[in-house]
C-alpha cells in the first residue's frame, strides 16, 4: 500500500484535503470558521473531503479496535484517491486518522479492514494536523496586528502528541509547536507544566467530578503562570475547559476563570480578522474583555 506524498515538504504544499469532523460542524463551529478564514489568509487551500464520515472517536476506539481502524480507513482511502495530504484540525480526528494510517501499514490488519469496509485500499493520504501545516510556513505568516502583551498558555491536550510511537509530531511532554506559533504572532507563550495533561476527555456527563478536578488544576496552573488566555487545538479540550468554569468556581471556591480560545482564532486575530469574523464572541468564558484590554478587540 502506498502512502501518498509522504516525503514531500509541507511548506511547499498549497492545497490540502480538509477533515472537519463532527465537532467542527457543530459545537466547535468557531474552530472551523477561524481555521478556514486563517488558512485563506495564509494562502492555504482547504478542500473539504467529500463524503467524509465519523473518525471513530471516542466511542469506537474505546470499544472495538477493528472498528476504530476501519472507520478512519474509509476516510483515508477517499483522501488517498484525491491525492492531497489530509489535514485535520480536531485533535481527536487527527489522532484516529494518524493511528489508523499507522495500523494499516500492517498487512494483516489492512486485509481485515478491507473486508470490513468492503473496499480495497490502494493508497492512503498523509495525515497532518493544522498546527503542523501552519508551523511549516511560520516565517511567512504576514502578521498585521501583533498580539503584543498577550500571555498565552498553550494547551496541547493528550491526543495531539501521543502516543509517541505513532503520532510524534512534537515532544510528548513539553511540545513547542503552538508556543512557536504564538511567539511568532507577537504574543508571549508562558512556561507551564500542564501542556499535555488530561482535561477529562469524554467524561463530563459520566464523571463530572473527575472533569472538574482535572480542569480546575489546568486552569489554576494557567492562571498561576500568568496567562491571559489558554490556546487549544482540540474541541473537546475546549469544551471541557471553557464550559465548566462557573461550576469549578462554585466547587473549589477560587476564581480560576481564564478564557479558552482556539489557536486558529489567535492566528486570525493577528492576520487582521475581526472578533466577530472569528467567532471569538461565542465562548462561554468571554475572551473579549481581556483582548480589548490589550487593544486587540
Amino acid at each position, binding site marked *: 500500500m502506498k502512502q501518498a506524498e509522504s516525503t514531500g515538504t509541507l511548506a511547499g504544499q498549497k492545497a490540502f484535503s480538509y477533515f472537519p469532523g463532527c465537532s467542527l460542524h457543530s459545537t466547535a463551529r468557531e474552530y472551523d470558521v477561524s481555521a478556514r478564514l486563517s488558512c485563506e489568509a495564509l494562502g492555504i487551500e482547504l478542500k473539504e473531503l467529500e463524503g467524509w464520515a465519523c473518525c471513530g472517536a471516542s466511542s469506537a476506539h474505546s470499544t472495538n479496535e477493528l472498528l476504530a481502524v476501519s472507520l478512519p480507513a474509509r476516510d483515508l482511502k477517499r483522501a488517498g484517491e484525491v491525492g492531497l495530504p489530509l489535514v485535520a484540525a480536531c485533535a481527536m480526528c487527527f489522532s484516529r486518522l494518524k493511528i489508523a494510517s499507522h495500523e494499516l501499514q500492517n498487512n494483516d490488519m489492512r486485509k481485515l479492514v478491507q473486508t470490513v469496509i468492503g473496499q480495497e485500499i490502494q493508497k492512503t493520504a498523509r495525515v497532518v494536523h493544522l498546527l503542523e501545516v501552519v508551523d511549516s510556513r511560520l516565517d511567512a505568516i504576514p502578521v498585521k496586528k501583533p498580539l503584543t502583551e498577550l500571555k498565552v498558555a498553550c494547551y496541547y491536550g493528550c491526543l495531539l502528541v501521543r502516543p509517541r510511537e505513532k503520532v510524534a509530531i512534537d515532544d510528548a511532554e513539553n511540545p513547542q509547536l503552538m508556543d512557536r506559533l504564538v511567539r511568532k504572532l507577537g504574543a508571549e507563550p508562558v*512556561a507551564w*507544566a500542564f501542556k499535555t495533561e488530561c482535561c477529562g476527555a469524554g467524561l463530563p456527563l459520566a464523571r463530572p467530578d473527575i472533569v472538574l478536578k482535572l480542569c480546575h488544576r489546568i486552569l489554576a496552573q494557567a492562571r498561576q503562570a500568568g496567562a491571559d488566555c489558554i490556546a487549544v487545538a482540540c474541541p473537546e479540550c475546549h469544551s471541557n475547559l471553557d464550559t465548566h468554569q462557573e461550576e469549578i468556581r462554585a466547587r473549589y471556591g477560587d476564581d480560576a476563570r481564564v478564557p479558552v480560545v482556539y489557536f486558529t482564532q489567535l492566528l486570525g486575530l493577528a492576520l487582521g480578522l475581526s472578533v466577530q469574523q472569528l467567532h471569538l464572541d461565542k465562548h462561554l468564558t468571554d475572551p473579549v474583555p481581556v483582548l480589548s484590554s490589550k487593544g486587540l478587540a
Partner: protein
Amino acid sequence: MARIGVFICHCGSNIAGSVDIARVLEAARKMPQVVYVEDNKYTCSDPGQASIRNAVKAHRLNRVVVAACSPRMHEKTFRKTVEQAGLNPFLLEIANIREQDSWVHSDDKERATEKAIEIVRLAVAKVARNYELYARQISLTKRALVIGGGISGIQAALDIANAGHEVVLVEREPTIGGRMAQLDKTFPTLDCSACILTPKMVELAQHNRVVLFTYAEVQSIKGFVGNFEVEVRQKARKVNHTTCTGCGTCWQKCPEKVPSEFDLGMGQRTAIYIPFPQAVPTKPVIDTEHCRYMKYQRFVASGEEDKKPPQCRVCEKLCPTGSIDWEEQDRVFTEKFGAIIVATGYQTFDASAYGEYGAGMYPDVISGLQLERLMCASGPTGGEVKRPSDGAHPKTVVFVSCVGSRDEAKCRPYCSKVCCMYMAKHAIMLREHDPEVQCYIFYIDIRAGGKAYEEFTRRAQEEYGAIYLRGRISKIYQEGKKLVVLGEDSLIGRPVELSADLVVLATGMEPSSGVVELAQKLNISYDTNQFLVEAHPKLRPVETQSDGIFLAGACVGPRDIPDSVAQGSAAAVKAAALFSQDYITTDPMTAMVDISRCTGCLLCTQVCPFKAISTQALRDGRVVASVNEGLCKGCGLCAAVCRSKAIDLRGFTNQQLFAEVTSLWQ
C-alpha cells in the same frame, strides 16, 4: 617430498559417535603423500600428543594433520606438539571434524563420515604446501599512556608506575579526580570521597615515573602495540605552571564569576580557577571565554567602535611570580607508548530530556550529582543543604529513580547500576544533616547487588526512615514555594501526590562526550550506547580487539568505584605483562605484497579493517602497498580484493587454497 601424518581424534564420543573413524582412517591412508595415519581417543591428552611426537620421529614425518575440534580450541596446543617433535609449528593443519561436522550432523552418520573424509582431504592438500614460517620480533616502548584521570585511570597509572614502568596520564579537565572528586560520601561505608581519593591524586602527581598532563587531550594516534605514536594537545592555560606556586591570590581576587562546572552550576568559580581546593595540580588555568582581559582583546581585535570593556588583568598584577602568560598558545607534542589504557569514564544523563520532570525549568529539581555538591563540606554551600531557589533547608525531599536509565524511549535501555545505591546514601546523609528531613524514593526496582549493598538500602529504610514507593513520576510542577510531585504507587495501585521542597533526579550514567571520536582514533569498537566494547565480556574484560589497548572503568559500562578501581588495576596488569617482554612476537600469518606485481591501486588500504596497509615509494617512483606486520591480523581481505594478485597471505596462500579446492575433485 612431503611425508604427512594424519591423526584422527575420537574426542570421546563427540566425533566417534557420529563419524565412522575406521572409514576416515582408511580413506586418509590413500590420500597423496600421506605416509602414516592413526586414531586416538583424545588426541589433545598427554598420551595423544606424545603419540604424535613419537610418530613424527619414527616415520620421519615432516607435515602433520590433526583431525579433531576447531582450531580455535587446540591449534596452539598441537603447534607446540609438533614444535617439540622438531618441526616448524606452521607445518601443521587442523581438520575441524567436530564443530563443523560431527556436532552438526549427528543425525546422519553416513554423510557425516563422508564429510569428515573431505575435510581431512582438504587439510592434507593444504599441509602438503605449507612451508616454514617464523614469528618476527618487534621492539617495544615500555611506557604506558592512560587517557582519563578519574579513579580508574589514576589506579591504572599508579599500578603501572609501581610495577616499574613510565606512565603518562592525559586528562582534559584542569584537574585529575574525575567524577569521584565531586562526590561527598561513598556507599556503602560512607567514607568521605575526597579523603580516600586525594591521597591517590597526590601520590600520582608526586610519583617519579608518572608524567601528568592535565587540560590536555589526545589528538591523534598512530602505530600499533608496543609502538604507538600519540599526539597530545596541551590546551593553553595562560599560566606558567613551572613558575606558578599555586598560592591562590589570583583566583581569590579575580572579579569575573561564572557558574562552576565542577559544582554543576550549584556554585560559582572565577575566570582564573582551580576546580576545587584539593585539585591536582593546584595550579590554575584561565578560562579564556570568560576572562575579562581575553574579552577585551577579542573586542579590540573585532575593531568595533563601541565603549571598550575593562582590561582587568588583576591576576597578572597580583601574581607574585609573574606566571600569567597571555601569549601562551595550545601546544601539540608527540610521545611514544607501548600500551594505551582508555579510562574516559562517564557523564550524567541530561535530565532536561524529561519534559515532565521540569529539570532546568524549576531550580529545586536537581540531579543526584548536584545534591552531592550541596552536601559536600568543600562545596558551594559549605556542606549545608540549601535548596537552590531560596536557600531554605528542604524538609521533604523526593527522589526519582531511573532518569535516563532503563528507558527505551530515551534510548537508554540499560541500568546505570549506581543510582539505587546513591539514592539510599542521599536519604541517609540528608537525615544525618537534618533529622527533620523526610525522604520519599520512587523506584522501579531496588538493585543493590554488591558487598554490603542490600544491607545499606535496608538501613536507609529502617534506621533513616526513607519511604520507598514503587512507581514512576508522571509530572512535577511548581506551586508556590513547593514542588508538586504526581506519581503512582504501583504496589497499592493508586496515584500519589506529594508536596516537596526539593526533588532529586537520580540521573543515570552515559559515556563521556567525545568518546566516539576517541574510539575512532584508536580503532576500537563501541556499542549502541557508545560504551566501549571489551574483547570478551567475561574472559577479557579489560582488553580490546586492538592489541596493546586496554579499557578501565565506566567507559565500558556503568560501574561503581570498587569496580572501576579493580578494572584500573586489571588493565595495569595487562600493560605490565606486555612490558615484561623485551620484544613483541608477532603472528607470522600476515599479508605480504609482491611489489613487482602491485599496481598501486591501493584498494587494499581501503578494505583493511586494521589500518595495517600503508604505501611506500619505490626508487623508480612507483607507489606500492606496504603491510605493517605489527598491525596485520591476517584476515585476508586485502588478498581477496587485490586485482593483480600481488597480495598473498602467509599460511593461507592462494596456492594453498586452490590446492584445497581442487583436491575435492581429484
